[in-house]
């Protein structure tokens, strides 16, 4: 059975970019043992919400995207429970490669940013978007 660890509050798609708005609940499994006595929203949880936003964006465009590579990702801020979290993604074609530039904020604070190299799944093959 599929289990959603955080439910998005709002998703705002555009042609080449999108926003995903989330609230990180204190009872999320992301805080199960991370860490005992000091709940910290893990970096992989942030990447998971970036992925969720990318997946929604792709569904909005009627395509399927696969992440091939992640690079230059920085986690700038530690977050605890009950934090707002907003993902901004922007799809660009750079030197023939499809790249998703993302940054995430909690309130006014920049939390993380980076680049995803993606391919579109089409007829069983992977191609640039």
């Amino acid at each position, binding site marked *: 059975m599929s289990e959603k660890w955080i439910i998005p509050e709002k998703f705002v798609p555009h042609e080449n970019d999108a926003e995903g708005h989330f609230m990180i609940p204190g009872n999320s*499994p992301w805080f199960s*043992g*991370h860490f005992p006595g000091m709940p910290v929203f893990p*970096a992989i949880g942030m*990447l998971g919400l970036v992925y969720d936003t990318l997946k929604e964006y792709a569904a909005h465009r009627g395509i399927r995207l696969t992440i091939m590579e*992640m690079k230059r990702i920085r*986690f700038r801020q*530690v977050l605890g429970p009950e934090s707002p979290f907003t993902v901004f993604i922007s799809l660009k074609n750079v030197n023939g490669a499809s790249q998703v530039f993302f940054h995430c904020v909690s309130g006014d604070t920049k939390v993380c940013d980076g680049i995803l190299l993606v391919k579109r799944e089409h007829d069983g093959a992977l191609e640039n978007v």
Partner: protein
Amino acid sequence: MTGPWRMYNIDDFFPHRGRMKIIDGIVEIDDDHCVTESIAASLWPLCSGVQINSIIIVELVAQTASIFTGWKKRNETKTKGEGVIVGIKKAVLTAPEIPVGSRLRTSCRIRVNLDGQYGEFEGEVTDGHIQYGFVHLQTLNQQISLSGRENFPSKK
């Protein structure tokens, strides 16, 4: 059975517990490298039923790096790896998903160690047949604060 799997209680070396603990044991460890084992489970993060999104390899390498750091500091008073991930220089995902039930080996070695405070680790995840990817991550040892301090100050 002897060997690292039985020799060490991994809880002594890293702080992860509950559902966020995704490493089951140590397969090999020495001053140069660490290899851990995990059985991919449906209770893991990023699981969509019978498959787990392969970006989970970032967490597998991070937890293996944390165990490795804790093991290297095992004779010090504070033994658990306390580094938090502050960056991913590069991660290559060579398969989109990992099937639940896969027996995964995560290998990790230190690429940069600055006074035990800043570290860079390289690692890869395989099930013996499929390599799921490669990760180069950056960690910082620090007192975790939720007060708004930046993890990774920008270069001046």
